[in-house]
């Protein structure tokens, strides 16, 4: 069963993501609320996949993703953000995101993105 680390400053979003992922057969092993926390949790937990927002306090999701990829170039990170602007999607994918999901997300889209990242 794949392990997932969630990173979003809005607890309601993590609650919804967790419900969707657990129904999809994944295990949520950690929840971070900002970019610095997700980098620290990644080091400790080594999850199979990280689902991460862009807009977060202390360190944004794009910089947190770069920091994680510097530690582990094989890290599988999926961005899940309300900011679906074309330039930001391009920037995130160029920086190493495996996928980009725009909020509000469909449950099936989230599960599919994880399955694709795990292949």
């Amino acid at each position: 069963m794949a392990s997932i680390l969630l990173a979003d400053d809005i607890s309601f979003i993590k609650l919804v993501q967790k419900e969707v992922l657990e129904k999809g057969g994944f295990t949520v092993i950690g929840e971070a609320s900002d970019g610095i926390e997700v980098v620290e949790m990644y080091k400790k937990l080594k999850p199979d996949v990280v689902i991460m927002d862009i807009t977060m306090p202390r360190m944004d999701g794009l910089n947190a993703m770069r920091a994680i990829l510097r530690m582990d170039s094989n890290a599988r990170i999926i961005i899940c953000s309300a900011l679906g602007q074309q330039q930001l999607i391009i920037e995130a994918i160029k920086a190493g995101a495996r996928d980009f999901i725009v909020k509000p997300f469909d449950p099936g889209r989230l599960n599919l993105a994880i399955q694709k990242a795990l292949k």
Partner: protein
Amino acid sequence: MQVEYINPFIISAIEIFEKVAKIELKKSNLTVKKGTTPENEISIVIGLSGDFMGQVVYSFKRHTAQRVVSCMMPNASADKQMAYMESAISSMANMITGRATILLAGKEKIIYITPPTVAISAKTEMKYSDIPTLSTEFTSRFGTLQINVAIRPK
């Protein structure tokens, strides 16, 4: 502030409320205000930076916010809905602002937004910008929502 800058927020609010809470919003009023002081007890403030700058303030009456949250979490207990009220309303404001920035940014611009800040009290005084504010009100079956937009291109 140009009227065209508020249209993405109007379109996005209607779309996101329908998708996330199954609530139909109807635009009822558009006014120009000097300040952005919201009219209701619960306000969510989100800042914009990058190719646009300024702030957006979403304002709800408490009972409206509670009912919106009950539609966003229809299977949750009343206690859980209360526990997540501020967070759920913040996520709504975040998604509306995010969707609006897609429309504002087009293919070339980049607009960043701040994490939402929640302020709870009646008539919260907010002074943060000299940009004129366009305020729009929406009606719904649960009461009104006000969106105050004070933004301009960088």
